[in-house]
């Protein structure tokens, strides 16, 4: 019974959202606001259940998942930084939140630099150092070099550089085309998913 009610609610909300394709209307507005509200509530619940409780409350107050007192009490440092973030609500103490922001920006920047160099730049350079023995390899190497030349702005785009940059543009456009094609496919897939639900689970036309 619960499943049937759930299916009808989901089908009704899907149709309410689809109705926007005809024109804006109260049914769409209702579904939109409901979605935002439920998502926000779900996110708050998840943050408490899978973040604050198991990673802060449980280890500090119930010693769960910690092996030493240091492991336990060191958690107070991120807890304090987390609370300082809330200082933004109070104009006089808002500056305190900058410490927390500095910490998160510092960590993100540090990890980002390592990730970009170790995870992208070096492996991608390695992946481009290919023997020019196959058509695929030649296209790949020419594509990389001419695209890099297109983004080289320290010299005027004249002569050979201009020709190379033009070839680079062709590769960039081909890449955009592939991305756009995949995006169209993805959006149609979402429509297929919803119609599949309406036809199969709701109307039972396929059973």
């Amino acid at each position, binding site marked *: 019974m619960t499943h049937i009610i759930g299916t009808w609610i989901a089908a009704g909300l899907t149709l309410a959202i689809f109705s926007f*394709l*005809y024109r804006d209307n109260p049914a769409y507005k209702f579904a939109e606001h409901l979605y935002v509200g439920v*998502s926000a509530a*779900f*996110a708050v619940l*998840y*943050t408490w259940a*899978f*973040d604050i409780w*198991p*990673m802060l409350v*449980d*280890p500090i107050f119930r010693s*769960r*998942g910690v092996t030493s007192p240091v492991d336990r009490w060191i958690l107070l440092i991120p807890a304090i930084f987390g609370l300082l973030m809330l200082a933004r609500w109070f104009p006089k103490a808002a500056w305190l939140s900058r410490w927390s922001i500095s910490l998160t920006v510092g*960590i*993100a920047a540090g*990890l*980002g630099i*390592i*990730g*970009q160099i*170790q*995870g*992208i730049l070096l*492996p*991608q350079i*390695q*992946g*481009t150092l290919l023997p020019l023995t196959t058509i695929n390899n030649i296209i*790949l190497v020419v594509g990389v070099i001419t695209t890099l030349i297109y983004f080289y702005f320290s010299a005027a785009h004249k002569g050979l550089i201009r020709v190379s940059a033009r070839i680079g543009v062709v590769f960039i456009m081909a*890449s955009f085309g*592939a*991305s756009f094609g*995949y*995006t*169209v*496919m*993805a*959006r*149609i*897939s*979402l*429509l*297929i*998913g*919803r*119609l*599949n639900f309406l*036809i*199969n689970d709701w109307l039972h*036309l*396929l059973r």
Partner: protein
Amino acid sequence: MKFLERMVNLDRRFIYLALVVVVALPLILKLVLPIRVSEPVREAYRSIEDLPSGSTVMVSIDYDASSEPELQPMLLSVLRHCFAKRHKVVLLGQWALGLPFGEIGLNKVSGEFNSRAQSSADSILYGRDFVNLGYRPGARALIVGLGREFRDFFSADYRGTPVDSLPLMRGVRNYNNIDLLVGLEAGQAGDEWIQFAGARYGLKIIIGGTGVIAPDMFHYLQAGQIKGLVGGLQGAAEYETLVRHHGTGVAGMVAQSTAHILILVFIVMGNIAYFVLKGRKKS
């Protein structure tokens, strides 16, 4: 002339209606096309197929409801493949709202296997053959930290059971105990798994991505940073074909093709109308 003018000024609601019709009809008529499996999907399949039986595969659920039609069929196919090969599955996720889909997938596929099982040894059991660790925040920091020790982040599983009480998790401490990561990605988490778990710890990775992110994954595939790529609903259909279990991926392929044909027709007709009218105005 009037027809061409109508084409140029066509009410977009007619396009929506036409799209719904061409997508719905193949689904209602249950039309199926033969699926040709592409090399990136075959490589992803081989990565799981070639693992010795009993290997540990980690699956990351990095999507939510908005990408479910594309990525859920991939999850189901990968789980069917893993359980058929008797691999252990450790499921976790970086998208809080996506974890219920992981739980649904595990329950569905383990249920299918258990309905055919004749003994406990044949069954797919929670804690022994698969676990759902759930969601933890942290993204990059989490990925780097898991390379050191899972318990620093996951002291309990999705259901609140301490991980050390789960037989499967007793042997899993960090990436050294994971044979393959299957990242099901709708956003940036895939790049982060590759950049941190792959590049730093040498974790073997295959990616199942939405159509939007799949093109951005090909350079990782070319450079050998990932071992296989399953892109979009088409990729899901190809994987379903390989595991010989047709689901919503294969069922949606005819609808996908008819929708693409319709879009192409509209693009061509719109352009013809535009250029003809432009030429007539000039003359």
